[in-house]
């Protein structure tokens, strides 16, 4: 009863937040709209990562592989249709990019997900680098020369606002997907894998398929985000999308916010992006040190993330009462 009510409250709150976020560009300066884009992009990436990493406990270190595949396959497909209207190009690119991510992820899923813990993480790091290197060094993929993306914006609308709204749609869809997964049988299956994979399997949870499905969903979302991101930049090379810092950030968002929660990656992404781009944006040669320090402090002081910290504080209060 209370559970239902609290869920309803959450839904209402989320919808209100969504509407507020959609209208925000009306009052925000362009810089903050741009920061908003990055927050939404990062939050969606963090959520996509969390579907596998947060729910099932399989920490991928190679999420950038799918960002890159989505961006480059989508971009190459769009280049084939250079004469078509940009909106159509984008849709084709989206279809091609996400299809490529789905196929590649499905092919990779069964062998790679046999590995556990740190070995899975390392294997995904390797996968990301293999794709990055091939993308960069095989000429038809144009990774080294770079790929130009058509302007898909709507005439009269500031491109910053347009991409902000596009990222918002993507982030909202990702949140919805993650929420639906979380409360479904599939989601509980993933959680059981995180808690004890062997027992879960013994009790009849189809762990293999669940892991693979989560992997593919996570990859496709990353691919779609990668394509939108590439459009928002207008020109990318391999180094713009296959980035090790993205691999790492996807994890840090969850760690900072709260591992396995839905709100965690969103909070984490918002804090980290604002911190690195707004607060530390001015410093010529200090931001790397500051980011490093933040990571160290985070691991030592808030090992279960801000959500965990908040829960602990709230819990303590209740006990006192």
């Amino acid at each position, binding site marked *: 009863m209370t559970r239902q009510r609290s869920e309803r409250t959450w839904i209402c709150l989320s919808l209100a937040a969504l509407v507020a976020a959609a209208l925000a560009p009306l009052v925000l300066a362009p810089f903050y709209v741009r920061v908003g884009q990055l927050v939404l992009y990062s939050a969606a990436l963090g959520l996509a990562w969390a579907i596998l990493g947060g729910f099932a406990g399989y920490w991928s270190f190679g999420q950038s592989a799918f960002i890159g595949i989505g961006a480059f396959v989508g971009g190459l497909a769009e280049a084939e249709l250079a004469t078509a209207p940009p909106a159509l190009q984008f849709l084709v690119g989206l279809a091609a990019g996400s299809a490529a991510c789905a196929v590649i992820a499905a092919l990779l899923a069964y062998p790679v997900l046999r590995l556990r813990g740190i070995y899975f993480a390392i294997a995904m790091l390797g996968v990301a680098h293999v794709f990055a290197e091939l993308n960069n060094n095989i000429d038809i993929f144009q990774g080294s020369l770079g790929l130009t993306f058509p302007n898909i914006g709507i005439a009269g609308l500031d491109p910053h606002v347009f991409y902000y709204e596009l990222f918002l749609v993507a982030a909202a869809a990702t949140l919805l997907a993650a929420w639906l997964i979380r409360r479904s049988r599939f989601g509980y299956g993933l959680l059981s894998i995180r808690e004890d994979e062997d027992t879960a399997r013994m009790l009849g949870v189809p762990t293999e398929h669940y892991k693979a499905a989560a992997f593919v969903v996570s990859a496709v979302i990353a691919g779609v985000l990668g394509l939108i991101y590439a459009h928002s930049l207008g020109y990318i*090379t391999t180094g713009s999308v296959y980035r090790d810092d993205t691999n790492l950030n996807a994890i840090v968002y969850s760690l900072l916010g709260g591992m396995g929660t839905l709100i965690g990656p969103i909070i984490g992404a918002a804090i980290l992006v604002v911190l690195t781009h707004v607060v530390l944006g001015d410093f010529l040669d200090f931001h790397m040190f500051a980011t490093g320090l933040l990571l160290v402090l985070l691991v030592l002081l808030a090992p279960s993330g801000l959500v965990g910290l908040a829960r602990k504080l709230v819990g303590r209060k209740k006990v006192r009462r």
Partner: protein
Amino acid sequence: MHRRDVIRGLSAGLVAGGIAAPFVSRAAAQSGKTLVFGGSVPLSGAAAETGLNVNNGYITAVDYLNEHGGVEIGGEKYQLKLSLFDDASDPSRAVTLIQRQLDEGTQFFLGSFGSNIVLPTAAVVERAGKLMVQTGGGSDQIFTKGYKNIFGMYPRASRQTRSTPEFFKGLKPEPRSISVVLTNDAFSKTSAQGMVNDCKAAGFEVLGTYELPEKVTDVSSVLAAIRAKTPDILACVTHDQDSLLIARQMIATGTNVKLLLQELGPQLASYRESLGKYAEGICVHTYWEPDAPFKGKFFPTAAKFAEYYHSKFTRPITYHVAGAAACIVTYILAMQDAKSTEPAKVRDALAKADYETFYGRIKFTPDGDGDPLLMGPSMAQVQKGKLELVFPENARTAPTIYPVPPWDKKA
């Protein structure tokens, strides 16, 4: 400077109101007659060495002009101010922070380094109707998009080596064959393709092109292939660190060619120091040298510029320093021509620019890159540890050593 940044960083990070700080400081900077130049430089990451040189070049120009009472534009005196940030070679970081500067009213931008950064930032600046004069992006893509407000000090990559075959032709005995080693990135690749095509057109035989990945630890296999099929000339279109690795490994394996040309690397004093006597005879394209005969307004001569630079910095001077300073000088000259600091008017003046400066003559093509004849590179050769200009004839400070003696014969 470093310590100050740390302290500033700590205070801004610790104080909860850190977010508000930028508004306050920037607002103050904009008031009065101050010209603000914005933009990013890569001060961390692989391009940081050049990034630091570029940054020093900007500082040199701004300090010099301010110390000489600022500049007069349309009857008003202005002081100059730099507002740069580190983009860490991350395009989305660069775009975001450029946007912040646009919001705060910055009109004039200087460039970062690397086309994957310069291009997206150029797009934002162009869209906002502001200006960018940059020394860090030479890729053709930057200049073929129809941008009106983006200017580059260097000719686009595919045109940079246009005069190179002519230099090779002038060598006696005339070389016949060439091999090219290149880094697989947008700039090096376009540039190397340009060189290969030009050399082929001039009748040279291209024995091989070898693409290296962006991070190299060993070129032994490339060198083995070169020893098996030795060209007269080996050209390396690679970045500083890789160039040095190639040269060191060539020496250490006794891989000899009659002439080694490295597009980037030998312009750095640290490179020449590391190779010592073995650096003798290695060629490099350079856009400027302190003893070049250039004269202009503000910095009266190239030598005076170098002198002023050395009074402020201990880092050895390179052409990147001068190129960066030239960006600012060009901006000011264009503003004085336009008698205005309105971006549209300054833009028109830049498009018509034809200035004599300490950096040489400055004139842009209709696409915004440097005129390949006037602003193209000259060929320099390391002779007795110094760079001597050897081509074109009219700028030459020493005759070319050719063929260069094998490594183990270098005294």
